[in-house]
């Protein structure tokens, strides 16, 4: 098993009333698997992702439980040891491609940054790997983009740059935190296809977080449904989508606008 999360909880301590954002979240993931977490905003799904990535400041919240990555519990690791995993073994892409890139740093430098942090490659070798990662992320003309700045790119392109930067060291797990929510529907479908291709080609496991059950169904083999920090239901994607056990899941499915009506077409598969 690659990832084994046991009773992960995130409790914010920096507010007047302590607030539990994630309550005893458990999940097992194998190499190369694509698992989805669905839930409405505030259900704790992004918080779970950030906690797994070690991105929640310890001064703000208590993260408890266990998160075993290939047998090593990431949660109690000191910052220095955790840094060795971040960007190398596990990577993350975020919801906001417009603001997640440094506006004054060239695209190339941002894509190859993890190489710079985690290794001692020459600039030439770094560039070669960066260009390969950009190609993998479906960016046209990587050589030309290498010297450009984020503001010269569209939202979809920026998300692809984020994907390239996250994949430059070929991590075994990619956490995708609502990566397509801020994008147009057509771009959304293309990015999902790219993620699928990457999973197939590189064997990268993907933990895909979304509020959109349909997107999750199209991409993931298994789904976890979250509500108010807790897991409501979990199971194979098809089963959860077509035969939900819990009322909340049914509600979530029913509340989804039908793509057939909106686009006059079927689901993108």
């Amino acid at each position, binding site marked *: 098993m690659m990832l084994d999360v046991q009773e992960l909880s995130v409790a914010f301590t920096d507010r007047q009333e302590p607030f539990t954002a994630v309550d005893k979240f458990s999940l097992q993931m194998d190499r190369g698997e694509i698992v989805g977490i669905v839930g409405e905003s505030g259900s704790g799904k992004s918080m779970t992702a950030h906690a797994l990535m070690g991105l929640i400041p310890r001064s703000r919240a208590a993260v408890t439980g266990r998160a075993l990555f290939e047998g090593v519990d990431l949660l109690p690791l000191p910052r220095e040891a955790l*840094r060795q995993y971040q*960007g190398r073994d596990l990577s993350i892409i975020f919801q906001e491609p417009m603001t997640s890139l*440094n506006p004054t740093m060239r695209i190339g430098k941002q894509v190859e940054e993890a190489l710079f942090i985690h290794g001692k490659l020459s600039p030439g070798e770094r560039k070669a790997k960066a260009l390969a990662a950009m190609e993998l992320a479906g960016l046209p003309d990587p050589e030309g983009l290498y010297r450009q700045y984020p503001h010269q790119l569209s939202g979809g392109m920026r998300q692809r740059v984020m994907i390239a930067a996250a994949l430059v060291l070929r991590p075994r797990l990619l956490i995708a935190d609502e990566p397509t929510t801020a994008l147009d529907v057509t771009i959304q479908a293309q990015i999902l296809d790219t993620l699928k291709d990457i999973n197939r080609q590189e064997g990268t496991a993907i933990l895909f977080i979304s509020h959109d059950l349909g997107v999750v169904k199209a991409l993931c083999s298994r789904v976890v449904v979250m509500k108010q920090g807790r897991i409501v239901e979990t199971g194979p994607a098809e089963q959860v989508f077509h035969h939900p056990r819990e009322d909340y899941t049914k509600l979530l499915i029913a509340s989804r606008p039908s793509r057939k009506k909106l686009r006059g077409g079927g689901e993108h598969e």
Partner: protein
Amino acid sequence: MGKALLKRLALLLGTLLLVSVLAFTAFSVIPGDPTQAVLGMEATDQQIAAFRAKHGLDLPVWERYGRWLSAFVRGDFGQSFKYDKPVAELVISQIQVTLMLATVSFALILAISLPLGLIAARRPGGIVDRAVTVLTQVTMSVPNFIMGIGLMFVFALVLKWFRPEYVSLEQGLGPHLAFLVYPALAIALPKSAMTVKLLRGSILGELDQDYIRTAYSKGNSRGSALRRHVLRNAMIPVVTFLAMAIGDIMAGSIVVEQVFGIPGLGRMLISSIGNRDYPVVQAIVVLLAAVVVGCNFLADLLYRVMDPRIERT
């Protein structure tokens, strides 16, 4: 480097022209006559007429301005009424002192504000941060001549670290700088306070940005995220502010030179106004304006270089 900069350049020249017109007309409007100031009360009509003819004072204002301007752009700043020497000669001997004072002031601003700003931003709300906030608030609200008098009192009269007597460059670079540190401090402290405040706010603002989260997710340490990502973005407004502060530093030195008895441009400007020595005043005013406008231009240029989002068409 493009249309926008050419436009700025044109604006710059226009501003300087306007300043020179204003300075020129101001002196033909205010009371007081250079002939009397230079020749004294007992001058004969003949002497006065000769003086006026020599310096072109018998001509109408606009014609005098035209002559002055055409000579000025060719590098001829005119003759001083009082000293009967070329203005350029007088100004150049004084400007060195003022430039030195301004340079030391600027160096002090950097030396004080950059480390303090970083430290204050490191732990917002911490002891250092709160102490810095109080200190900046106090120094920001004190005008630089009061600061000068205060520094003079504390360091020269009470602590006796220096003698309140000007030490020129001819007496050695070391002693010269050792003296200039105090007036420079009077100029630098209020500006440093503002820079600290700006830098602290700017760093904290950048630390909140999404791209810093991305930086951490790649395995950056706090220090490397700060160096590689935060600083460059946080420095953009600070660098712009500092470039514009150079103008203020020059202006501040005029006042502070009075307090510390430094024979620089400021002293010369004030005594020349008293003597109604227009050519000198005119040259100094336009030179100071050139420095201020030039620094604004520099700020604009730096901003464009540092922030790729500003289109360089």
